[in-house]
């Protein structure tokens, strides 16, 4: 990669991160209390934020994809890794109360218990690197379906899936507001 391109990449990364961190702080989603309140079904602020982001990005990115302007980034479906990893992640998240990006945001806000969370996350990544050869030979071979998508598996146009998901998200938002969550 040319040096100019690499510098641009670092610059756009920093700008994008700053804007994203700004928006997360304004929505108050980088707080332990908000994240735990969502896990306890008491306050759905972070779920509203995440699903609105998903909704807008899903529509926007597929529009650009149809116009041939962007490429999708599809992760493989590996049931062993996704399910077991998700369960383990959930236990850790319920204890630390920050996900990786929000832990950085929380530190920016002055919530410095997140420093210990961040250090733990670095250690956790190191432990995973040690365990990777074992995981690759076991868990990551269980239920490996490769890079599949919902429209691909169903054999239908992606806009049908998008419209259904948008309707589900909006119904969920209306229910949150009705229940005062």
């Amino acid at each position, binding site marked *: 990669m040319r040096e100019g391109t690499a510098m641009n990449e670092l610059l*756009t990364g*920093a700008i*994008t*991160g*700053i*804007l*994203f*961190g700004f928006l*997360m702080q*304004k*929505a*108050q989603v980088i707080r*332990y*209390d908000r994240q735990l*309140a969502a896990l306890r079904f008491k306050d759905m602020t972070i779920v*509203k*934020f995440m699903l*609105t*982001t998903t909704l*807008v*990005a899903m529509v926007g990115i597929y529009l650009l994809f149809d116009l041939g302007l962007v490429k999708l*980034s599809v*992760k493989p479906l590996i049931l062993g*890794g*996704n399910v*077991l*990893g998700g*369960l383990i*992640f959930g236990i850790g*998240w319920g*204890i*630390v*109360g920050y*996900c*990786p*990006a929000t832990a*950085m*945001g*929380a530190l*920016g*806000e*002055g*919530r410095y*218990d997140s420093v*210990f969370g961040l*250090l*733990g*996350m*670095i*250690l*956790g*990544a*190191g*432990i*995973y*690197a040690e365990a*990777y*050869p074992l*995981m*690759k030979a076991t868990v990551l071979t269980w239920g490996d379906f490769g890079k599949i998508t919902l429209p691909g598996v169903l054999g239908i146009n992606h806009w049908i899936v998008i419209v259904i998901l948008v309707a589900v998200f909006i119904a969920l938002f209306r229910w949150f507001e009705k229940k005062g969550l």
Partner: protein
Amino acid sequence: MNVLREKMWSPYVAGALAGLLLVLSVLVTGKFFGASTTFVRAANYVEQAVAPEKVAGMEYFIKEKAKIDWQFLFVVGVLFGALASAWLSKEKKAVAVPPMWEGRFGASRVRRGVAAFLGGVVLMFGARLADG
């Protein structure tokens, strides 16, 4: 710019703006948002300082090469963006123990710090296993 000083924006508005930011990011640079790979790289850098010959042979560190890249700066940027927002709305204050945690587990900073550390270890192991 009074709106920038407001304590809280609707999560729907902030979420929609974050969605637009993601669309723009994918269009301009081809980058999707992510954070956890950066923690693998950070662990790699730490271990390189301690045991470089061991790290050189580790499959996962070879797979996720250590580099300061787009995502690394994205993750650092989040800290400064949150700092700027909190500063503008005068919410920048040191909090060692989250209020909800304190209500259930008490005001001990050590207990909160240890739990946050262990929670972080478990969380990141799960995140990497799920490839998320």
